[in-house]
């Protein structure tokens, strides 16, 4: 099995896979999909990039601290957004809130879009971490 063919095809097709993953995350509240499946597609594209590159080069340019930092930051962002929604009573107390908008557009539904993105980021980096730790012993 030649490595050069796989590497060239991988360089061509990985941006399309990532675009599809971002599309599934962003249209989570309008059609089937959402944070979990979109995050899995993004994570699989990172695994493909790690599989088909040259063995002596470094990883995908994301260091270990950056991966763990992204996961912690998006988990805390989810907690802060949901905690604020608890304290303001779900819109009953009249504090500042993101408006609902018209159903059917992408920028609608209040907190749905930021929460979807946070869940997608967590799932993507978790799936990537599971692969690289089992294969190479370090991220």
């Amino acid at each position, binding site marked *: 099995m030649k490595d050069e063919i796989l590497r060239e095809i991988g360089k061509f097709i990985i941006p399309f896979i990532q675009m599809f993953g971002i599309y599934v995350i962003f249209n989570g509240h309008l*059609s*089937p999909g959402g944070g*979990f499946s979109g995050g899995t597609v993004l994570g699989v594209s990172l695994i493909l990039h790690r599989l088909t590159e040259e063995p002596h080069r470094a990883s995908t340019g994301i260091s270990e601290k950056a991966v763990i930092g992204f996961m912690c930051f998006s988990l805390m962002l989810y907690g802060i957004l949901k905690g604020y929604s608890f304290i303001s009573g779900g819109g009953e107390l009249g504090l500042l809130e993101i408006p609902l908008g018209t159903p059917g557009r992408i920028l609608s539904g209040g907190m749905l879009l930021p929460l979807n993105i946070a869940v997608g980021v967590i*799932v993507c980096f978790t799936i990537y971490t*599971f692969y690289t*730790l*089992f294969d190479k012993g370090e991220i």
Partner: protein
Amino acid sequence: MERLITNYYETASIILFGIGFMTLLIHNNLIKKIIGMNIMDTSIFLFFIAKGYISGKEAPIIKGAYKGVEGYINPVPTALMLTGIVVAVSVTAFALALTIKVYDKYGTIELNEILEKGGD
């Protein structure tokens, strides 16, 4: 007894649970035991999601006009099982990581050889 043939989704789910349970008990290899645990998890998801179907209604996504309450299936079991699928993936990953550490220490994955080599 003809209820078992009418509800064939739930019957298949319980038979899959039995197959997974027997795979967990019979084989000696640790990886096959983890596969059996994963089969048991998947059968429980099939059982729960089959409980939410109503014949003649459609999927719970509102496209076009709103059909009222009587036009969609029950969305609650599907929404609750999304969490379960993610937990099953996490447990499988952690079990595989522990298998790697067992292989590093004992040099084998077969359970009877591990018990003979000094496990307790």
